[in-house]
Structure formats: C-alpha cells, structure tokens
C-alpha cells in the first residue's frame, strides 16, 4: 500500500498541471492529472484523491460545477477541494464571481497567479 497521499490537479492549462505536479511530487505526494471537470470526475472514480486542486474556468465542466457535485455527493463530499480563482480585478468581467465561488462549499481558495509556497502551505494545512 502506497502511503503517499494522492492529489488530483484539474486545470485546462497543461503546463500549470505539470508544474503543480512536479512541485507536489517533490513534496512527497502522488499526483493524478485531469484537464477539465469531466476528466476530473473520471480520475476521482479511478482512485479517490485526498485533495483536489481545481481550476474554475474550464471547458465542458467548470470547477464550480465539479465542486458542487462533489460536495453534494455522499460518497465524495469528504474530499478536500482547493479552488484556483482568478484575480479580483479581472473576475468582474466574467460570469465567474467570488459569490459563485463561495456557493461551491470549497474548502479553500488560492488566487491566480499562484504562489507555489502558499499553495503548498494550504495543501498541507488541509491534509493535517
């Protein structure tokens, strides 16, 4: 049995997924990857992650929707979700709002552009 905790990274930017995976693996986590909310669900069903780092704006199924589905699921609501949110000054111009984010019941938020050290701190705090 592998005692490293599994973290799922879901973002439609493959370079960001790769960068986060490299950082998380260097911190002794296992990482699974998905590039939108639909693929994210597939990965969750394959192997339940301890925590999900979830982008908001993605094609097919966005982060808010996936987060809401998880938190309304008896089976998966215990998975910790950290949402990656856009910067405040730009988010006003989209349909994605902080209010929308708050209704998702995500466990934590990290603003973009991402401060990797801050993200690692949030991940470790939430997994304790």
């Amino acid at each position: 049995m592998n005692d490293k905790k599994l973290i799922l990274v879901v973002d439609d930017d493959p370079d960001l997924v790769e960068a986060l995976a490299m950082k998380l693996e260097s911190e002794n986590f296992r990482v699974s990857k998905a590039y939108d909310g639909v693929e994210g669900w597939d990965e969750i069903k394959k192997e339940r992650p301890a925590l999900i780092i979830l982008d908001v704006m993605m094609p097919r199924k966005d982060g808010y929707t996936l987060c809401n589905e998880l938190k309304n699921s008896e089976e998966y609501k215990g998975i910790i979700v950290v949402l990656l949110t856009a910067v405040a000054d730009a988010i006003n111009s989209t349909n994605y709002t902080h209010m929308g984010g708050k209704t998702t019941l995500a466990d934590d938020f990290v603003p973009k552009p991402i401060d990797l050290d801050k993200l690692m701190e949030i991940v470790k705090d939430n997994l304790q």
Partner: protein
Amino acid sequence: MQEACSGNPDKIKIGGVKMSPELVQINLFRKSSPDLFWTGLFRQMAEDRINLTFFTQAAVNAGFLCNFCVLSSDFHRVENLLQQEDDKNQQVRIIAPVGTITIFPHHHSFTLLGCVIGILGRARIPVHAVCTSLSSVAINADYVLLDQALKELRKVMTLPVNHAPFRADLDSIRPNSYPLG
C-alpha cells in the same frame, strides 16, 4: 513511440490535444538588438489586453528572430502598433490564418516532437513554427489544414476516453477573452 510514428499499430498514449482559434502569426526579424523595440511593443500589447497565444524568440547568426501569434480579431490593433514603430532595421512577415495544435504531455522527451513533425511532413502540411513548453508540444500550421493535421496525428496517437473537445468553447462564458485560466 518511434515505432508508432513509423506505422506500428501500437499507438502513442497522450493526455490531450488542443486546437486554437484562428490566429495571425507575426515574424519579426532585426539585425540589431531588439530589446528596446520588442519590450515596448509587448508592453503596449499587454496594456491593450492583446493576448499572445504563442511566442518564441531566438538569436540567429544574422540577427534576432521573434515569432508570435494573436487572435485574428486582434490583429488590426497589432498592425497599428507595428506601423507606429515602423523601423527599417526590422523585417515583418505576416502569416495568416494559422492555428496552433498543442499536444501534451511530452514527458520531457523530444521524441513526440520529432514524431509530430514527421507526420505533418509526410502529409505535406506546412509547419510555420514549433515550440515546446513544460509539458506540451505546440505547432503552428495553416488554419484551414488543422483538421487534416489532427486526423493524421490521431492515426498514431491515442487520446483518453473522455477527452475534451479539441476546440475549447470558453468564449461564451468569457466575454472579454481574458487569459484567466
């Protein structure tokens, strides 16, 4: 992977393919140091919220070369900026319309890059620019040939079962097309 490129039925497993919307590729060439001009140009583009979807820069024997892409709908604004800074030391070449095919992940190996270029070459699909990033191989080809390029690539590559659409439809939920991620 090399066997798949040469026609072996064992296909290359990849994580995904994305295709860009219609773009314009701008190639800039200068014999002298480009720092002052290009920094000013890209700063102005950032201030005007013109998104760079593709960017490469290289020092070559005869000077400095920069290739970048913008959405076709943004091109007239870039054209204005280039005309404002008209400089005889600079050669400008416009290629339009182009599109970028992004394939990922490359698993930190050049094999995928060579394979993709080989496939497109055999299909006689012109490649206008190539770059690799942390996880991806990105190729610029004629926009009208993108679907054909994808068809050729899919002959040797296997995508995840629930793969996302090749063209992401984010514009309908991102009115200003900001690169929010």
